């Protein structure tokens, strides 16, 4: 039975306390136990004021750029990776996506919704799966458009989701909401994901188990367990 639900992608329009508080309270009402706030800077944002609301808030930093160097610069500039929990990249092209899929600091990859097929090809999908990086599927773009535009978007999502499922890439389903009106219950988010060909079980995993694993992995970075094994030096006699 799935109990912990996490929304990994909430993009508040501002960092004013009232605005964020409204989102946090609404997320709790909808049944989420943890949410990730994506903010450009966490310098002026105080997480402690939301401690009593009964929901865990996880910071997430997202970098974007059209070239690998641009993204690298942003990573270095905003670095401070030890303090942050979840790190994601908004890849605008294949090269950035490929770089992000290989980088060990990156947890999630997101691409522009209009060019899924051009960016995420089979090799990137396999690379993401082998490096245990998740791909983020947001439901807000589906809600923002209507008619033929939505139809085209769903088609693009459909092709990409089938590719990711074949490659066994972990898929995170998040709201991608800017305000409370774009937020949905976890079960409803999973139901929305079925419109793009993601089975309901996978959709429910995408709002519960997969994001939880990502958060755990991101938190591990802060501990010794997050340091990868290096070269082991042994004495000559023992060889």
């Amino acid at each position: 039975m799935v109990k912990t639900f996490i929304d990994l992608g909430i993009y508040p329009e501002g960092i004013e306390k009232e605005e964020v508080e409204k989102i946090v309270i609404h997320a709790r009402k909808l049944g989420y136990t943890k949410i990730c706030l994506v903010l450009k800077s966490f310098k002026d944002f105080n997480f402690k004021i939301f401690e009593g609301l009964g929901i865990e808030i996880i910071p997430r930093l997202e970098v974007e750029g059209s070239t690998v160097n641009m993204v690298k610069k942003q990573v270095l500039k905003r670095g401070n990776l030890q303090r942050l929990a979840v790190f994601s990249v908004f890849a605008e092209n294949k090269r950035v996506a490929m770089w992000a899929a290989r980088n060990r600091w990156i947890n999630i990859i997101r691409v522009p919704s209009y060019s899924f097929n051009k960016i995420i090809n089979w090799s990137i999908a396999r690379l993401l799966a082998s490096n245990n990086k998740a791909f983020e599927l947001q439901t807000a773009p589906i809600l923002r458009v209507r008619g033929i535009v939505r139809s085209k978007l769903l088609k693009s999502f459909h092709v990409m989701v089938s590719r990711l499922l074949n490659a066994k890439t972990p898929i995170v389903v998040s709201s991608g909401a800017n305000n409370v009106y774009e937020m949905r219950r976890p079960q409803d988010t999973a139901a929305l994901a079925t419109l793009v060909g993601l089975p309901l079980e996978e959709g429910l995993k995408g709002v519960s188990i997969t994001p939880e694993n990502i958060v755990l992995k991101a938190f591990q970075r802060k501990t010794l367990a997050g340091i990868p094994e290096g070269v082991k030096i042994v004495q000559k006699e023992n060889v």
Partner: protein
Amino acid sequence: MVKVVRNRYLVFKVYTEKKLDLDREDIKQTLFNTARTLFGEVGLAKLNLQLIDFNPSNLEGILKCGHKTVTETRAIIATITSLKKEPVNLHVKGVSGTLKRARKKFIEKKENNNRKKED
């Protein structure tokens, strides 16, 4: 005898910050139009949708569908973004196999809790 189509009753709630004068017809029109836009006329026929009840005071309603089309119905409800040109957010409070149970579990329970708080 086993029923071919078993019904499911979805209790939904409309979330809005502004006060809206909504009636049953508004909700029904919006739900069916959204269903037709998403799944087409053939898909809508298969969904077996029926708006059972809508309470304008607490903005809660009950929608009937077939047991195999609960996910699609949830998707329809989640896709609604505006009512009377105002932004809204609809979410499913719960799903039940009988109307009596749906009312008892998701509507009356909340009313009882509210009464207890007032006392």
